[in-house]
């Protein structure tokens, strides 16, 4: 029994990605509208409106780390090992780097507005910067040449190790004295002092960023497959070109020139080195 033949994908679009993209766009629009319509708060005045986007971006970066670790684990586990998990881990890390960078950027803007400084070496901020550095390092590691199995294995180990920073960062505001405010979400007993409108806007922000992350990751995984196809095509062309160089199409009609050695097939072998660029 043969495996079903899957059609060759020439695009990253599909009905699923379209539906996901529409949902992401609508929820992102709702987040912006709800966030900008929030009333000024007593403590932070207008700046509390950033609560609709900043925690959502941070959440999406956590999700990206989690999916990278999950994909890495599934690749390392012999029973579930499949190329798709390696591609998922790589795609999630790249999208996660975007979200982590945006988390740092929006956090820095919020810090400048409320704390008066763009940056402090606070535990939460420093660990967030470390998250970005780990993701960029992971992506660089994936580009180090090697056979696909080796690259996937070392990337998987790195992806799992990098994800260990997420719980540390999440609880950093409780484990250390930090300038950053306490956890605003994922608390077992949410604070009753937070206005319901802020909680609602923040929740929609979480949903929107999760959907945007999912949509981008879906496209990135499919793009990785297209990249693999292009790389395979390049390799085939390079092999064909090399074969064409070493196997002349026509036999020489003229006598063998001096210095050349007649080959059994009648062609002339010259003293060229395979692999040299000319």
């Amino acid at each position: 029994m043969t495996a079903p033949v899957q059609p060759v994908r020439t695009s990253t679009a599909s009905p699923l990605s379209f539906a996901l993209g529409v949902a992401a766009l609508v929820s992102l629009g709702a987040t912006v509208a709800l966030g900008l319509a929030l009333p000024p708060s007593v403590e932070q005045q207008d700046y509390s409106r950033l609560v609709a986007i900043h925690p959502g971006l941070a959440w999406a970066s956590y999700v990206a780390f989690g999916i990278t670790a999950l994909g890495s684990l599934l690749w390392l586990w012999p029973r579930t090992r499949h190329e798709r998990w390696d591609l998922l881990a790589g795609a999630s890390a790249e999208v996660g780097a975007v979200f982590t960078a945006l988390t740092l950027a929006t956090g820095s803007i919020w810090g400048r507005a409320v704390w008066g400084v763009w940056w402090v070496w606070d535990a939460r901020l420093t660990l967030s910067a470390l998250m970005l550095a780990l993701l960029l390092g992971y992506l660089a590691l994936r580009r180090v040449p090697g056979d696909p199995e080796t690259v996937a294995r070392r990337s998987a180990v790195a992806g799992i190790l990098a994800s260990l920073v997420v719980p540390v960062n999440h609880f950093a505001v409780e484990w250390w004295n930090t300038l950053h405010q306490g956890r605003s979400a994922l608390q077992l007993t949410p604070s009753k002092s937070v206005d319901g409108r802020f909680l609602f806007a923040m929740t929609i922000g979480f949903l929107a960023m999760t959907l945007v992350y999912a949509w981008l990751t879906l496209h990135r995984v499919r793009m990785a497959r297209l990249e693999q196809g292009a790389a395979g095509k390049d390799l085939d062309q390079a092999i064909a070109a090399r074969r064409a160089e070493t196997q002349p199409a026509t036999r020489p009609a003229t006598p063998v020139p001096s210095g050349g050695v007649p080959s059994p097939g009648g062609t002339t072998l010259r003293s060229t080195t395979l692999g040299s660029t000319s």
Partner: protein
Amino acid sequence: MNYVWAGYSVTLLGLGAYTIWLLRRARALGRGGR
């Protein structure tokens, strides 16, 4: 309020720029380019 606009703008521009890069590259790869 300027910081609020800056935060939202950076977010939307960042996500938009990455999305455009992703879709353009995917389209180029789908057409057989690099």
